């Protein structure tokens, strides 16, 4: 808590030489402080270091207030760090290399599902005939083919979130970041979307980092789980998930699935 506050924003991004092969992003000794509305300094992240490996699914889990969303926003360039480094194997271009799924779907209500999903390639000025097949394919992967021309208000919460996942993937980013993407959904819809996500991951081989407060979600989806502890947010542990792929209904019957969850719960 005694780290210097404020003025010296040290938001470097490093070069390729600094990360080992197979690592997409190395986060090194990150601190994040901000001033609350009452003027109090809040230490959101304290000396957080972790690697994101190429092609893995990494879950970041922790109680509310542990800074897990802040950490994800820093990876996406939505937030700056107070000190520390984010080192990329290859520096990402905004809108090209990262797809981001927000807690709320943040769809534009005047755009159809297709046009919402296609906003990133459209912004990159890619010709429609190039991105259209890809967007249609992704929509069919999450079962939204028949809703391509529907407006957001005509969709259920789960369908909105599917649309926003497709949107995050439409420009074929190498890295998919998701901030509690299924948090606002009911259990049945969540489980369907988990399988959708695994199917997309198998089909596309993206690197996926997602934030969650759900132990079973982390265990079911991830290759590795980062446990953060709150006040200030620190890395408490990083675990390899001891479950084989493909993950499916049988995974949930595996005794290791329950054991692993119990272990994670113990750390939260």
């Amino acid at each position, binding site marked *: 808590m005694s780290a210097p506050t404020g003025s010296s924003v040290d938001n470097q991004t490093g070069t390729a030489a600094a990360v080992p092969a197979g690592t997409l992003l190395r986060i090194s000794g990150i601190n994040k402080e901000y001033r609350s509305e009452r003027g109090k300094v809040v230490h959101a992240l304290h000396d957080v270091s972790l690697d994101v490996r190429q092609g893995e699914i990494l879950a970041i889990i922790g109680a509310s207030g542990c800074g897990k969303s802040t950490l994800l926003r820093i990876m*996406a*360039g*939505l937030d700056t760090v107070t000190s520390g480094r984010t080192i990329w194997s290859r520096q990402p*271009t*905004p*809108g*090209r290399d*990262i*797809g*981001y799924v*927000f807690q*709320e779907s*943040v769809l*534009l*209500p*005047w*755009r159809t599902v297709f046009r919402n999903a296609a*906003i*990133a390639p459209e*912004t*990159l000025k890619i010709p429609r005939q190039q991105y259209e097949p890809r967007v249609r394919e992704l929509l069919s992967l999450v*079962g939204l083919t*028949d*809703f391509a021309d*529907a*407006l957001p*208000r*005509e*969709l*259920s919460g*789960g*369908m909105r979130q*599917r649309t926003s996942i497709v949107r995050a993937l439409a*420009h074929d980013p190498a890295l998919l970041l998701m901030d509690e993407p299924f948090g606002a959904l009911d259990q049945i*819809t969540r489980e*369907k979307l988990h399988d959708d996500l695994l199917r997309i991951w198998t089909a596309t081989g993206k690197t996926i980092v997602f934030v969650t407060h759900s132990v079973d979600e982390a265990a079911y989806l991830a290759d590795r789980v980062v446990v953060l502890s709150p006040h200030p947010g620190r890395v408490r542990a990083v675990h390899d998930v001891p479950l084989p792929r493909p993950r499916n209904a049988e995974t949930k019957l595996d005794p290791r699935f329950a054991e692993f969850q119990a272990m994670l719960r113990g750390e939260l």
Partner: protein
Amino acid sequence: MVAAPRAETAGTGRRRSRRLPIVLKPFVALLYVLVIVAVWAGYQEAADVPRFLLASPGEVGGQLVDLARDGTLWTHLGYTVRNIGLGFAIGAVVGALLGVLVSRSQVVDAMIYPFLVVFQAMPKIALAPMFVLWFGLGLTSQLILIVSLSFFPILVGTVTGLRQVNSGYQDLATTIGMKPVAKLFRIDIPAASPSIFAAARVAVVDAMTGAVVAEWISSSQGLGYLLVEANSSYQVPTLMAAIVVIIAVGVAVYQLVTFVETRALSWRDPVPA
């Protein structure tokens, strides 16, 4: 697959609940007009009001037909409608531009907002003679009055709308690499458009008031001029015919904006009527 029926029922339900009032609306309006005319005619007869104070519906109607036949009505109507259109268009562009500047820049906000509020507090109609003095008897001073009346609602509507834009859209724009100018046109303005359209409905009626008052003061054409001319020569039926036409124009321009609004904002959740 997710259960789909929700979307379909929502769609048809909306269409049905909207179609009914649209069919009935003209009848309700017609009924209103009939009731007013009946009360008017009844009062005229019962109270025996002198003709030079209040013309009967029949006289006013007859005068309207005469004015339409000899072409006077169309000349004046065309002039006024053109001025409303032109003044409203300029006012909308000026209001929207200032609104964008005020909402984007705290400096601009601090600099011009107090001035604008004072300007709005001034009765523009009282300024109209000054406009004539400065810009002469003619189209310029008329348009200035119309613009000065119609830009402010649009400005307020634009600022309000832009300030209410979901802050999540900024994060979205950042993650997809959308530049601020593109975000303004492709996200912020569409998101603010309900508020801008609500303001436009007010502004277009203000533009009409401005057009009529301007013609009253500084024109030899238009419905406002017809009003003055009839008034100064004690032509009560003509005076009242002009008023009827002005009301009709006001209703028409309001309905026109509402029609465009309904079309442009069909993506919104249906608002319970």
